[in-house]
């Protein structure tokens, strides 16, 4: 629960933005204006403080009332042969309403982060994994291996909260924790230990990671390697890392799939996850996929329980049909099979719909601007600021309870989607 200590001061505020479920924020609310007073970061502070600039829906750029925008949206979806319900950056109730609508109108669903998330989810669906969650990392990790990911930039408080925490249940001295980067090194200094030990970096180009990880896994398993270097990394260096992983009591291998923008990314993730399984024959080691921004885990979870599939579900034949490739928004816009786009984007004004000529309805965060004005734009509230809700953090286990902090007259995605459904 967010405690409102004064009329306008909130403590223990959870964030839906940062993906790690930060819930120690202190926030001042002054009318519609929000100021993050304590524990902010480069991700959360601008996301909370984003001003409310427009509250009026628009049709073809002209201000209209909410009902007119809802009716127009229903008209567009009602005559569509194959609509896309995409973006889906929202909270649990927003997802529930979106899926109900998509099921009813025979739409195809997609999530704005699915292309990245698929690099993990295809692995889950093909071979599985052994993963852990943030409190286990905080209290147990003795070796953290970061693959191809700049945690400093993506998750600014990760090290402060989960690696260099002073108190840990099972470690005497957290400052002795070892951190190794494979691929790119850190952009900041957060990974340097409190007593000044910088993380070890085994640098390579990210497109070389498939090879580097394959070699690392082979070394973990004691398989002979004939080359002396791979992707510019000496095999002896990788051998040292393999030995560290085998000697660690609770190693954690972490990555953000969003950074794996190279060929064979999912096979690389699979090799990492299988390497973790291999290590667990003798010791303990776990994976920790990082993500959770823009409501992506929330979207996959709700879609998972309501349809059996995480995203990219085609309801047009009357049942949920999953195809992670054919049902991508990009693909459907390119092949011309979709004729209307409903885009839901509650968290970030930069997450606008992809360029398209088909009829477009945007339920977006107030302040969103467009290169091409959509047919309908309905500014919606942000979960955890304008209305209560639930969001998952990146370890996929913990859902945080989001609270309403202000009343800016912005409806929730769930309310608008239900109204559109009603109007149909």
């Amino acid at each position, binding site marked *: 629960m967010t*405690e409102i200590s004064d009329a306008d001061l909130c403590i223990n505020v959870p964030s839906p933005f940062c993906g790690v479920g930060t819930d*120690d924020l202190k926030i001042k609310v002054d009318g519609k204006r929000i100021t993050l007073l304590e524990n902010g970061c480069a991700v959360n502070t601008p996301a909370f403080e984003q001003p409310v600039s427009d509250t009026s829906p628009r049709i073809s750029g002209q201000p209209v009332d909410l009902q007119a925008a809802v009716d127009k949206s229903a008209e567009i979806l009602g005559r569509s042969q194959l609509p896309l319900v995409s973006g889906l950056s929202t909270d649990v109730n927003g997802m529930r309403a979106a899926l109900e609508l998509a099921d009813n109108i025979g739409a195809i669903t997609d999530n704005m982060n699915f292309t990245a998330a698929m690099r993990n989810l295809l692995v889950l*669906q093909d071979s599985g994994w052994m993963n852990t969650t943030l409190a286990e990392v905080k209290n147990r990790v003795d070796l953290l291996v970061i693959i191809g990911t700049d945690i400093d930039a993506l998750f600014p408080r990760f090290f402060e909260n989960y690696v260099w925490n002073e*108190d840990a249940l*099972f470690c005497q001295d957290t400052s002795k924790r070892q951190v190794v980067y494979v691929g790119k090194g850190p952009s900041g200094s957060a990974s340097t230990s409190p007593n000044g030990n910088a993380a070890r970096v085994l640098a390579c180009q990210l497109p070389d990671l498939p090879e580097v990880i394959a070699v690392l896994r082979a070394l973990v398993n004691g398989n002979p390697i004939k080359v002396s270097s791979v992707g510019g990394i000496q095999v002896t260096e990788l051998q040292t890392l393999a030995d560290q992983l085998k000697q660690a009591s609770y190693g954690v291998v972490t990555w953000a799939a969003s950074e794996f923008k190279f060929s064979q990314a999912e096979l690389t993730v699979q090799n990492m996850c299988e390497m973790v399984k291999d290590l667990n024959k003798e010791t*303990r080691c776990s994976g920790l996929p990082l993500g959770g921004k823009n409501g992506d885990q929330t979207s996959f979870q709700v879609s998972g*329980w*309501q349809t059996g599939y995480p995203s990219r579900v085609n309801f047009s034949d009357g049942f949920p049909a999953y195809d992670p490739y054919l049902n991508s928004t990009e693909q459907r816009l390119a092949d011309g099979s979709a004729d209307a786009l409903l885009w839901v984007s509650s968290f970030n004004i930069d997450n606008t719909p992809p360029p398209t000529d088909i009829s477009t309805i945007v339920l977006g965060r107030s302040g969103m601007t467009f290169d091409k004005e959509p047919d309908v734009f309905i500014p919606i509230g942000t979960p955890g600021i304008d209305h209560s809700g639930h969001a998952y953090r990146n370890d996929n286990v*913990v859902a945080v309870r989001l609270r309403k902090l202000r009343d800016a007259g912005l409806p929730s995605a769930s309310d608008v989607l239900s109204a559109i459904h009603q109007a149909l």
Partner: protein
Amino acid sequence: MLIKLTGGTVYDPEHGIDGMVRDIFVRDGIIVDSPADSKIDAEYDLRGKVVMAGAIDMHTHIGGGKVNIARTMLPEDHRADPVYRTELLRSGVGRAAPSTLTTGYRYAEMGYTAGFEPAVLPINARQAHMEMGDIPIIDKGGYVMLGSDDFLLRMMAANHDQQAINDYVAWTMKSAQAIGVKVVNPGGISAFKFNQRSLDLDEQGPHYGAKPRDILKCLATAIYELGVAHPLHVHGCNLGVPGNVETTLNTIQGIEGLPMHLTHIQFHSYGTEGDFKFSSGAARIAEAVNANKNITVDVGQIMFGQTVTASGDNMRQHANHAHANPKKWVCMDIECDAGCGVVPFKYKNKNFVNALQWAIGLETFLLADDPWRVFLTTDHPNGAPFTSYPHLIKLLMDRSFRNDKLSALNTDAAAMTTLGSIDREYSLYEIAIMTRAGAARLVGLSDRGHLGVGGAADITVYTEQEDKERMFEKPDYVFKDGELVVKNGEVVKVTWGTTHVSRPEFDSGIEKSLEEYFDRYMTMKLANFKILDDELTEDGRGRIMVHPCNAEGRA
């Protein structure tokens, strides 16, 4: 709204009614006395029909993180059973890990009106309730998992008194919105995180030094002293390990008379006799259950075919991952609180071990004397999907059908089971005890599982048939809180059920130490950890019912 159900043959074990013709009156969702001269708004002619309370599944994995991992990892299984949207119903998927909406429809279509998720991790309880919130028609609830959580093990290691532990248990139940408490592989999930691969009943666990036997005793005492109706729900040590029948018998003795429910006991009833060092311990288990009135069990029957096992027991799931079919599996360590493991399984009747598992489950059903203390489960989906219940009921009620199936088994397994020599056939009355009256009593639902005045009108009506599978898979009518929701085995109305919880009292002083603990070691504020009522009810369709505790004179 006054409804009359006229002339049905009623099986209501809570009131000792064994197949007697009775009229039942329902006003506004509640069963009432025959009204003197009120106008009947609707009447159903049930002459010749069998009438029972709605069935209650007291152990079914229907909501929570591991269930959703199982769903997400099995697209190929969903494709075998697409569920189409209708005018009334949402689309979904079925089979091993059905979608939430389909789960509710299919339970209701079989005459079930409640299901209880047995493995609610405290830190994941919010998700369990959100998933169950999307399961229509049936009532639901959860047992919150303790016993490998750092906070409890730390308290035990520090020799905290029982009262403090009771406070923590009661606080956890309230925070997680639970009706009971479950322990899974006591101490074992935690031990696995310290790289220990097995933990026996009397073995000291790593770091804290607690023995599983002590953890069970401590939690069973807490549940008893707090007056929680549902006894400690126990998934014991050594699941699936040949020889674990000894562990289970020791577990029964070790609880020293306290109420204890042993779940999916089939997986804990294995001996080491025979050429393959794997044999049935069902007779010994049944004998112990018969002799110890404080013990209840559910069976966790396996059925042949594709399913998926989803368990909090990451230690044992990891040990069994080589059996994954298809070859994929997940294990997770979770928040110094618990863990989970998801391993797809395909049970085959020509496989020696699987065939004997099938027989062991049935032996347990048939050798345990008291149907009030044995419950019909497949540990959905771990032994089989819940949709196999009508088939299971037929196996219990029809000896010749059972023996036909037995003759198709792996011959080595068939030679090692006494099943063929057991004549017992369950009666409709006994089925009604196991799936209604007994289950309601066990969970602590005084207003469900029976057809007495004042009870909630969850009522299922069947046409009696020789083929009990046909009979139980397609009821004529199902009423949920007095509303007709199923007709001829098909959903005709979608309603939303109640979440049942229990809230034993505790000294709120426990929050002081918990708050400090959360701030130092956890990744969430205590205030944000607790699930408040509005999270379950704010959508306008969820309701919470709090069931009383009876702590008087127990502590």
